[in-house]
């Protein structure tokens, strides 16, 4: 125990087979349906992971491990983020898929996050947090502007 690792873990059950869920992490046409508007993906170790999540937020990284239908690991960060934010390649997202009958249990583990991002970008997080809450409640949060002053 030498660090204050910030680890985010999520588990979700999806009523679809692993093959389907897997495609949402490796195929551009599929990934944009849940994660953004445009994507450039090369799902092989060392291959690019580039997803335009919002008009101003570009997620960038590289695939680390791609095991068909069971595991995808990629590095992840925001293009243009400072070293103490979450810059490209600075954190790692692992997706594990387990079959549960006809459904899939997806586990997401996000590690390697730079904790220092917190204070400097607190305003930015709060802003985005507010948007997510609005969207989650079914509202329209209006045009996104996470790049500019607010």
């Amino acid at each position, binding site marked *: *125990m*030498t*660090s*204050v690792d*910030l680890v*985010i873990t*999520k*588990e*979700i*059950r*999806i*009523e*679809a*087979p692993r093959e*389907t*869920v897997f495609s*949402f992490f490796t195929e551009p046409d*599929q990934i944009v*349906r*849940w*994660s953004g508007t445009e994507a450039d993906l090369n799902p092989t170790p060392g291959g690019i992971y580039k997803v335009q999540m919002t008009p101003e937020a570009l997620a960038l990284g590289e695939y680390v491990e791609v095991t068909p239908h069971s595991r995808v690991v990629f590095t992840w960060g925001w293009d243009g983020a*400072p*070293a*103490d934010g979450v810059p490209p390649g600075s954190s790692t997202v692992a997706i594990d898929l387990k079959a549960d009958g*006809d459904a*899939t249990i*997806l586990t*997401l583990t*996000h590690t390697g*996050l*730079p*904790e*220092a*991002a*917190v*204070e*400097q*970008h*607190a305003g930015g*997080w*709060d802003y*985005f*947090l507010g948007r*997510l*809450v609005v*969207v*989650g409640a079914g509202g329209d949060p209006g045009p996104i502007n996470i790049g500019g002053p607010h």
Partner: protein
Amino acid sequence: MQALAQPRRREILELVRAREMSAGDIATHFDLTRPAISQHLKVLRDSRLVTERRDGTRRFYRARPEGLSDLRKFLELFWDYRLGMLKDAAESDQTRRAGRGASPEPSEGKGDSDSDVS
């Protein structure tokens, strides 16, 4: 400013996470000079990851727990939201596919109110 890019600083933060410690006590845990420790503490203090309390000539440090909470909160919600969208999309595919063949469970893929995000 890269407060935590340096492994030593993460180790210092870990040390003072649960309890306040003096700079001298912190230094005994590392094979570093006192000026080097002081420099690390200054960076952590400037980035507001630790608080500093002075008592005479001694300085005490403690992690600011709220320093870590915003990023966690953001990412928890971020992934809840994104995975919720992934679930809807994958299940709507599944419903479409099932609809072409034998459909064991003719449910609406979209607007699934019962999200399993935990």
